[in-house]
């Protein structure tokens, strides 16, 4: 059987000199098709000008082909597109993406593949061997690139244009009319880090930043939901109703947040028993309850271990 990939020398991703353009006029963020207006298509153009020496060295006596590899579990694709030599030393590819055809997001990269007569020879001689793969990039079709547990949408915006008063901020949470987390695409390198970093120190950095954002977002959302729960409890009490009905007075997203966190905050209780405990805690002291929640959220998003990894990497150089 062929040798697993760790034993094979492949080209550095930067050897491809990858260029990507997305023609999608209606969007603020070129790599994300999702919009409230339902933007329907985008033209993606990809070109590479590979370092000839690097790839010639790897392919030996075999020929070499450059392809665009498009993969997505949600869109059920793993498709290899041929690239064409658009000028000497440069290979190009373009494809129109239609919203009606896709779901979730698409992950793209350029791969250099060996071409030879024998498909079952050793990796040094066989056809179809991956000689190198560029950095991958995601095209969001209609969902946040970072999973958010279906609680909120994530959108990239240039804050200096959209939220001038918060132009130096990294993120901004809106809860009305729907839950949206805006990330500032004007922050140098942030978009690239949060959407493409998949390996090494950059991946650890990405996870730490998300943990930090998540902690703040969760606390804000839980705080808003429990404030409204507290109000609803007072209304229900004054009407002589069953206090549990207060949960039905909450907005859908608020109930989802509390249903997600209730069993974590009131750990070890059966079924919906957390609801009664939450009602008691909110009525007793809302501020004390929020301070407990802060500690639980911090533990749940593993913020200390995420940052620990970054610090250790930094120390190891």
């Amino acid at each position, binding site marked *: *059987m062929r040798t697993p990939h760790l034993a094979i020398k492949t080209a550095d991703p930067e050897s491809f000199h990858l260029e990507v353009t997305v023609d999608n006029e209606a969007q603020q963020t070129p790599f994300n098709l999702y919009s409230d207006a339902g933007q329907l298509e985008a033209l993606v153009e990809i070109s590479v000008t590979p370092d000839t020496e690097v790839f010639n060295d790897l392919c030996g006596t075999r020929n070499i082909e450059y392809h665009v590899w498009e993969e997505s*579990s949600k869109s*059920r694709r793993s498709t290899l597109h041929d690239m064409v030599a658009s000028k000497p030393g440069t290979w190009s590819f373009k494809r129109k993406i239609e919203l*009606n055809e896709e779901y979730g997001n698409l992950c793209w990269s350029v791969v250099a593949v060996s071409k030879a007569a024998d498909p079952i020879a050793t990796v040094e001689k066989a056809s*179809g*061997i*991956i000689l190198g793969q560029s950095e991958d990039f995601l095209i969001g079709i209609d969902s946040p690139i970072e999973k958010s547990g279906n609680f909120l949408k994530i959108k990239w915006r240039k804050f200096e244009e959209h939220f001038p008063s918060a132009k130096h901020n990294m993120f901004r949470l809106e809860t009305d009319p729907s839950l949206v987390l805006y990330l500032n695409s004007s922050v140098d390198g942030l978009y690239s880090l949060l959407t493409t970093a998949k390996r090494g120190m950059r991946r650890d950095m990405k996870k730490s930043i998300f943990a930090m954002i998540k902690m703040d977002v969760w606390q804000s959302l839980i705080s808003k939901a429990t404030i409204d729960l507290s109000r609803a409890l007072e209304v229900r009490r004054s009407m002589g109703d069953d206090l549990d009905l207060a949960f039905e007075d909450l907005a859908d997203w608020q109930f989802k947040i509390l249903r997600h966190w209730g069993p974590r905050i009131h750990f070890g209780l059966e079924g919906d028993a957390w609801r009664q405990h939450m009602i008691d805690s909110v009525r007793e002291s809302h501020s004390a309850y929020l301070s407990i929640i802060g500690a639980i959220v911090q533990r749940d998003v593993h913020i200390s271990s995420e940052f620990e990894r970054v610090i250790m990497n930094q120390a190891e150089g």
Partner: protein
Amino acid sequence: MATTMATQTQVHVFEVVPSLDVIAKVLLMDEGAVLDFLKDSKRAPKSKNHQIDLSKFNSAWKKLNTLENELKPISDKDLSVELHEALIALPRRLMLDPGFWVWLSLFPLREYVLARWAGGNEATEDAQFARFHCTASVGSIGQTNASARLYWASEIVFGESGSYKEVSSVIGIQDLHKTLFSNKISLDAKLLLATARTLSTDYREKVAREVIKMLGVIRPTTMFSSLSDADLQILLSDLKKRAEVLFPGKAKSVGGTSNMPTNTDKSKKNNSAI
């Protein structure tokens, strides 16, 4: 001659996919009660601007249903084609939406799903509720949801070859279908079809699983789609020979469908969890 009256059904989609608990509750209600149960909630299925005609599919599964009111796995290949033909005009995006498959399984195809996965009885176990449930993961749409698994088997074969001739290679053997469609291999239509074609001939479970394991091992180094059809076939045959050396023996039967596991081969609980 029997005729089938065309009946159009308005397509709906759950924008928020119901949990297994909600599915368990909903399965005890008729459609009107369900809509009432979900009304004024974001959990209610939303109407889409498409209609489908499931009358041929419904006639087909009822015809294949046995006297014991229990559909056998052998029905999958025919029903896969019937369902694909019924849905072929819908946008691909809708076919990737878990909310569509949950709606289709819970409402228009509820009787079929119960006949195929609960022996025609009420669903009582999580594994049976899971046949109505769906997520956007590879395995959920590919092989867990009772309706999506039928559609996608034919979609891959039809999309790759332009005909339904080889649908039985992909879904005719339940264990092979499950192994292939739980795997990322199923995202690559060319590789999936070639693998199914190779392994369904003289099918042996251990050999098939070993080949799929080997494909997983060499996947990071090999771009299968870059190989010609002939080269891909040479590679798969080579892997199969290696697996046969590891697991010597003979297939119980050659071709046909008698080596397929059936509902009656296993306990009900095991079957529903497949």
